[in-house]
Structure formats: C-alpha cells, structure tokens
C-alpha cells in the first residue's frame, strides 16, 4: 500500500516568499513584503494564523440541486475551472453532473494562499489551492451533515454522504439542495476530515472539462466578446518607440468617420498615446488608421537588435554578478585545452501572442467603477484601475472573464492595458468602454520574453563528465524597479534570469554562474516557464553535446550526472526511457531521437522526440513525455497541458521579435510565426509517474524540454549544434 498522502508537510514552497499588498492612504501603491512560511512548514517559527476561507464564498448549492463552485483563478486553457471544482466536489461528495463552475471576481478571499494576491502564474493553481479546495469541500460536507443530523436527531458520524445526498442511519435521506439553507447557518468547522486517497471519486480520474461544449458551439464568452448596453469601443495609438510622446495630432480625418465619438491624448505608463473612442471596433480601427500623429521620439533609447547583440556578446565575455559560486572558479584553467569548450548562445525576444488579443472593459461612475478583465493578475489590475480613477480597490467591482490564452501576458506588474482603459473610462464617465488591442498592437506592444546571450566555458574530465563550468548569462531583469524586486533580485541578479541553470539538478563540480541584467528600453515580462525557456535549452543541449563527445548514451549520461536527490527528475527520466526505448531503437532512416529532461516549478519532465528533416524544417513525428508532478489531480488535463505545452514550446524555434531603430520589425503573424499544426509534434504520449506527493504544477513545466530535445535530435542528423534561435537554416 502506498504511503498515505502526506500533503500538509509536503507542500513544498521553494524559496518564494509571501507578497502582501496594500494601498497607502493617499491612493498610492505600497507593497509590504515579508518572508512568510506556511503554517505547516518544518521550520515552524512565527507562522501567521492559517487563513479561514468561508465556504459560502466558494460553494453555492442552488434549490434545483446545481452546485456552483467559485474558482479563485483565471481559466485560460489550463483547465482549472474543472480541476479545482473536482477537488472540492470530491471532498464534498457532490454529484459531479450537477457542478457548474464560475470564475471568482477580485476579492481578498480569492487570493492565492501562497502568493497572497489573486493571480494565476508560477504554475501554482493546483499546487497552492489543492489543500484549500479540499478543505472547503470537506467543511461544506461537514456542515451539510450537521444540518441533516440535526433534522433527524442523530449524530454526524451516523450519517454518510454520496452524490449530493446525506443518508441517515435509518431510511433517512436528504438532498444537499434541501439542506443548504440549514447548512449555511451551521458554524464553519475549524478542521474537517479529509478523505483518504483511496476514497477519491474524482481526484485522480480523467475528468472531462466542464467548458468544452460552450467552447465548441460559440457560446463561451471571452473578455473580447463582452457587450454592455451603451458600450463604446476604444483603441489606442501607441508610439512606435517605447516611451515616445505625442508631439502633435491631426485628427480631422479620423473624426470625420461616422461613429467616432472622441479622440484625445492619454498618458501611458511611459510616454503618451492617442485614444480613439467609437461606437464599434471597426470604426475605431479605421479612425486610428486615419490619425496623423507626430511623435516625439527624442531622449529615449531606440533599441536596435544588432547593436544589442554586440553589447550582449561583449558582456557575456565578462563575469557578471554572482548567482552561484561552487567550488574552485579557477579549476577550469587547469584543464587541458583539448578538454575545454566554449559555447555561446543567442535567444531573441519572444512575444506571447495569446489567441485572444488583450482587452479590458471599464465603466466609471464617480464613486464606483466596474471592470471586466480576462486577467491573470486580478489584485494588481484592480489596484491599478482604482488608482487611475482615484478610488479604493474595493470600490472597483472586478469581474474575471474567460481568457483566450495568456502564457504570462495577462499578468503585468504595471497593468498597462488596464490603466489605459481606466484613463479612457474616466473621461467617458458613466459609459462602459471596451479597450481593444489589435494583434499589431500586441506584436509591437512590448512585454516580451527578453533576449539573452549565454557564454559557457566547460572543462571536461577525463571520464567525459563536466569537471568545471563557468557560465555567464545576459538578459534584462523582469522585476528591477518593481515591487517584486525585493523578492527576486539577489546579489544584483534577477533570479528569473538564471533559473534553470543556477538551480540545476546536475551534479557539476566547480560550478559558477553569473549574470548581467542590462537596462534596455524594451518592456519585458515572464513568458510561460520564464527563465527556464533559455536556461533549459542551454543546459540540455550542452549535456547532450558532452554525452556525444564522451560517446555515452544521452540518457545514461544524464543518469550519471544527476544529483542523487533529484528524485523526481530521475523518476521522469526512467519513465521516458521505458516508454520510448522501443521506438527509439526502431527509427526509420532519416529519423533521429532527441532527449531532454528538466525540472521547473517543482515538476520534473523528461522528453524523447522522433525528428526528421522535411522541407528544411524539423518534422517532429512523435514526442514521449514523462512527468512527475506529485499526485495527478486530473490526468486528462495534465495530458492536455503536456501535449499543448510542448507544442507551445516550439515557439522558441520559430519566433523572434527584432528591433531596428527602436521599432519592432514584425507586425502580425505574417512576420512573427508561432507554431502551426505542421510545426508541432504529430503525436505526444504523456506518462505520469504514479505518486501521492503533494501535487505540483503542469502549466509551465512542459515548455522548457521540447526545444532542446528537437535540437538534440537535429544534431544527430546534421552533426551541427544549434546555439542561435530561432532556427533559420538547418
């Protein structure tokens, strides 16, 4: 029998700290930060009191038996509007066929229990809310049973529950819907018995998504689909260089279009732009095309890719701020030249381009406001809107809309899109206004995964294993100058720049990692799996290269080099070996297998791909993926996340945002190309390591493994190592 689910002590919080957010009296933003550990942490000092989450904020049992479960997350593809309700419904013994999910508005009670703000990110939805939703379900059940026990004059432990019915010791039974009014008057228990994993009915099962039908028949509404009485639509003309300002404006032609309501300059987070408000989107867009703006682009840096590469390459050749210093940093110099290598890598800016373009709708009523946002960052966005409107956050009713993807793009520290919308709403007082960013706005609007340069010097031991490793990484900081800096910048190094290298699970002696975080006038942002995107690519291709040099099988090499305590990664590697060995040993001519493994956000992933070259592009016939994510809450959602996540990860091989004289050179999907069906693996088989450990996330972990695996396969076909992305020529 497997060890009982050791959930409470296994809630592994890596080095992140809590973020407490509050607004200062003057309407400004004050973020106070302090290190905070979960109540059940091993260290057990000065833990704050556990939060009490009132069940009635999360569960609403309707008279017709429907059970409305409120999800404290954005649903943007990851399936959380199914998997979190599953957890609660299981502990509650609810009839799953009666469960309906809704997305929570912004409110204190819906904050992420670990991050302390309402958000989706860091692959934390299940990892941080698993326990929470279990308890909510268990407590709700306890209250329902208490109500029934009262009614029947029996004790609670004489009752049992199943599929939204409480059964008494005799013939008594009562549906949850009948008991709801009484149950809600019962005291919320401090603790409630959680199920033994063997009692799970839903958790651990392949439960289909609740939102499928609506997303297949056109009825699912996303933020962009919102339609309110009297609503106007706005677009904003942004300066062609970040931080530019309006010098002069000729809006005669724009205003002539029927349906144009207003044209006016607005401040942006940096610089200024021009808002156009119209009755409909197409009119607003046409009006913007007719706008003649003279931009002041002086006094700001004009980012230029070729200049930046020159700077980055030079920086990579000098030591940066130290991220890791283990062993002897001179050890490499003592290794003979024949066993030393230098590898330089270049990664471009990447745009997220979620399928639903960015949008925000706001109505300002003077003493109140209402906002509808497909938001990954509800607390921050609500605060930003309130700040612009001169309100307190609680005066802004903030609805979370379904989002057409996000990948990090809808969690922006400066809430720039929401601020634009609020500024416009303020002027249009009383009229709701939907701000729409066109795809061109999105591709050109910044907040990219930063460009990076790496320079790695490796000294190889006589046994072919790395004996010394000196690694410099260059890339913009994601959080410098923001409230998150205190948390994430250590010794002058933004941890998100080096994650994936600095925390490597490989046992590399004399391991030195340093980084430069240059300041560039390009807004940057976390892009699904953040620093792991480029760091895993470097590590996994270099490990493969070393294995090839040593004539050791790539899986065997990794097994040898991984730290013994990297249990999850070893388990994933073993499983991918087992599940792919048959086809790897049976590849047709012109095909090669590529291997990679990487742990991120506490989830370990190993990947094997079958690649050939077609029309000068890599053709990925198959990917076998093995995952260790602790307890698999919904294996169906997990499978989808990994199938999709590896397809998403191919963006690293196909996409690039480049700059010339401050201007983004790409406009739309005709210049910035994410993976289409032909670019993604044809089949992806996903295998989950059986585990009862606390569940860890699956949103980001699929992304880092695919690009290095593909390139490792290509190396076997062409003999070349690919260190510059995107892949242009093979």
């Amino acid at each position: 029998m497997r060890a009982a689910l050791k959930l409470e002590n296994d809630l592994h919080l890596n080095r992140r700290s809590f973020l407490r957010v509050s607004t200062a009296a003057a309407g400004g933003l004050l973020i106070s930060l302090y290190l905070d550990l979960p109540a059940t942490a091993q260290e057990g000092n000065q833990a704050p009191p556990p939060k009490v989450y009132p069940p009635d904020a999360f569960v609403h049992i309707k008279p017709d038996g429907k059970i409305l479960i409120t999800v404290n997350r954005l649903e943007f593809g990851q399936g959380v509007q199914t998997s979190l309700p599953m957890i609660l419904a299981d502990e509650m013994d609810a009839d799953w066929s009666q469960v309906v999910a809704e997305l929570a508005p912004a409110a204190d009670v819906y904050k992420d229990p670990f991050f302390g703000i309402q958000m989706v990110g860091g692959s934390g939805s299940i990892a941080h809310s698993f326990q929470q939703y279990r308890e909510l379900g268990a407590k709700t059940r306890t209250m329902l049973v208490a109500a029934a026990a009262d009614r029947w004059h029996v004790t609670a432990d004489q009752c049992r529950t199943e599929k939204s019915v409480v059964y008494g010791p005799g013939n008594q039974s009562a549906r949850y819907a009948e008991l709801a009014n009484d149950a809600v008057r019962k005291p919320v228990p401090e603790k409630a018995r959680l199920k033994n994993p063997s009692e799970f009915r839903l958790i651990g099962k392949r439960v289909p998504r609740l939102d499928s039908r609506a997303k297949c028949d056109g009825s699912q509404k996303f933020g962009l689909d919102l339609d309110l009485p009297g609503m106007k639509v706005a677009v904003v003309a942004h300066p062609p260089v970040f931080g530019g300002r309006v010098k002069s404006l000729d809006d005669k032609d724009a205003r002539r279009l029927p349906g144009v309501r207003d044209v006016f300059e607005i401040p942006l987070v940096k610089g200024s732009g021009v808002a156009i408000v119209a009755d409909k989107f197409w009119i607003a867009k046409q009006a913007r095309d007719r706008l003649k703006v003279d931009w002041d682009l002086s006094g700001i840096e004009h980012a230029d890719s070729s200049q930046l590469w020159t700077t980055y390459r030079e920086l990579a050749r000098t030591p940066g701020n130290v991220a890791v210093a283990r062993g002897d940093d001179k050890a490499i110099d003592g290794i003979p030249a024949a066993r030393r290598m230098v590898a330089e890598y270049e990664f471009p800016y990447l745009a997220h381009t979620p399928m639903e373009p960015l949008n925000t709708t706001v109505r300002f009523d003077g003493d109140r406001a209402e906002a509808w946002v497909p938001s990954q960052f509800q607390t921050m966005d609500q605060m930003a809107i309130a700040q612009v409107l001169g309100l307190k956050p609680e005066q802004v009713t903030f609805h979370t809309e379904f989002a057409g993807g996000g990948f990090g793009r809808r969690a922006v520290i400066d809430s720039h899109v929401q601020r634009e919308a609020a500024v416009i709403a303020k002027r249009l007082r009383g009229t709701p206004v939907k701000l729409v960013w066109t795809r061109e706005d999105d591709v050109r609007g910044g907040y990219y995964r930063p460009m990076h340069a790496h320079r790695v010097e490796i000294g190889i031991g006589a046994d072919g294993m790395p004996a010394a490793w000196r690694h410099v990484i260059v890339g913009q900081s994601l959080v410098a100058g923001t409230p998150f800096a205190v948390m994430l910048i250590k010794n002058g190094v933004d941890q998100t720049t080096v994650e994936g290298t600095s925390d490597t699970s490989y046992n590399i002696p004399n391991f030195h990692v340093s980084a430069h975080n240059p300041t560039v006038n390009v807004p940057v942002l976390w892009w699904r799996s953040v620093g792991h995107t480029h760091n895993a690519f470097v590590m996994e291709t270099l490990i493969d290269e070393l294995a090839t040099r040593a004539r050791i099988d790539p899986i065997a090499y990794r097994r040898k080099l991984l730290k013994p305590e990297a249990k999850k990664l070893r388990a994933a590697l073993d499983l991918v070996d087992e599940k792919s060995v048959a086809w790897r040993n049976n590849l047709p001519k012109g095909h090669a297998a590529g291997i990679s493994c990487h742990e991120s956000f506490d989830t370990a992933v190993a990947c094997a791909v079958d690649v050939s070259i077609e029309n000068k592009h890599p053709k990925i016939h198959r990917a076998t993926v093995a995952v260790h994510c602790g307890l698999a809450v919904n294996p169906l959602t997990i499978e989808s996340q990994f199938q999709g996540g590896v397809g998403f990860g191919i963006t690293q091989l196909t996409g690039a945002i480049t700059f010339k004289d401050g201007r983004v050179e790409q406009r739309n999907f005709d210049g910035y190309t994410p993976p289409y069906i032909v670019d993604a693996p044809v089949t992806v088989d996903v295998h989950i390591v059986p585990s009862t450990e606390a569940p860890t996330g699956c949103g980001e972990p699929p992304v880092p493994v695919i690009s290095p695996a593909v390139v490792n396969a290509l190396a076997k076909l062409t003999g070349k190592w690919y260190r510059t992305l995107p892949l242009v020529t093979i």
Partner: protein
Amino acid sequence: MWVNHRLLLPVFLLMLVMFVTCVALSTQAGKEIMDKTSAADLKLADGLGAWEQVYAVLTSPRCINCHTATTYPQQGDDRHRHFANVIRGPAGKGVPGLNCVSCHQSENADSTGVPGGPNWHLAPLSMRWQDTNDRPLSSGVVCRALVDRSRNNGLNAPGLLKHHEEEPLVLWAWNPGRRPDGTMRTLPPLTHAEFVAATRTWVDAGTPCPSAK
C-alpha cells in the same frame, strides 16, 4: 582578223548595256533582298526586344508570385513564401478549409489588405516561371514555355495577345490594391498598354524566343 571591227562597237555596246542592266538589276534585287533581309532582321530584333519587355513583366512580383514551381504561392515584392501554410493543392486552388478563395474574393479588399480578382488561383505547374528554389527561370526558358501549346492551355499567338489584353487576373497586376499596412502594392515595370504593345510586337514577329538557354 576574225573580229570584224565593224561588229566590235555594237557588241561592246550590247555587252555594256547588258552589263549595266545586270548591274542595275542585281543592285535592285540586292536592294530588295537587302530590304527583305533588313526588314526581317529588324522585325526579329524588335520581336526579341519586345519579348524581353514581356519577360520583365512576367517575372515581376505581381505576376510571378502565382507562377511558382512549388507547392506554395509567394507574396510581397521580396516574393517570400505565402504565410499561414497556404498551399497549391491538387488544382492550384488550395485545399478544403484553406482555399485561395477562403480569403481572396473577386475584387481587392482594400480595407483589409487582401488582393482579389475573379477565380483567384495559382497558375498550373506547367506554367511555372521559377525553379523549385524560387529563382526566376531564364528568358529563353520562359519564352519557350509560353509558346508551348501543350503547356499554355492551348493558346496560339493571337490567343496569347488576347490573354494579355483581357484576362482579368492578368489585368489585376495593374490594379493590385492595398497591403494590410495601407501602402499600395507596386506595379509591374510597364503599364498595361505598354505590356500589350510589347506582346503585339512579339507576336507579330512570330513570337521569337532568345536562343540562349
């Protein structure tokens, strides 16, 4: 002496007249022959020159982008591969779900930047003017392809002229509409009238092709 001095002069005069006549006649004939040769040469030269003008139009982006040798059309003045994996399909009209007419309507859509014309489709592979590496074929190769009735849909020389004069998709090249960024697409190097005139000259010259491969 057998030559009678009394016949010498008339014979001489006769021979002189004959000589002069012959010379005169031969000069005239030579001139006619020379005229005929010059005229023919000139017509040929004009025809070949006109062909080079036609070739310049055919290999300009607005025309050659749909006369590919590959499974895809091209777009833009830089003739890059058409975005979104648009492909030729079995009949040059795309594939179900992604036909040419999925986006290209019977006229240009200037408000959205999509070019259009009646029955928008790719020229068949028999009418390719590029190689499989997207490089334009030589003038001689294209010329011979154009006049090859087994490849050009059975058009004779007057048919070719009419095609250049009237075919709507040909005419489109001179009314190619706006790009998505609002700028107008560039036109072929000749006006349509000049293109038709050059075609006519070439046709009148017997559709000569340059002998170089």
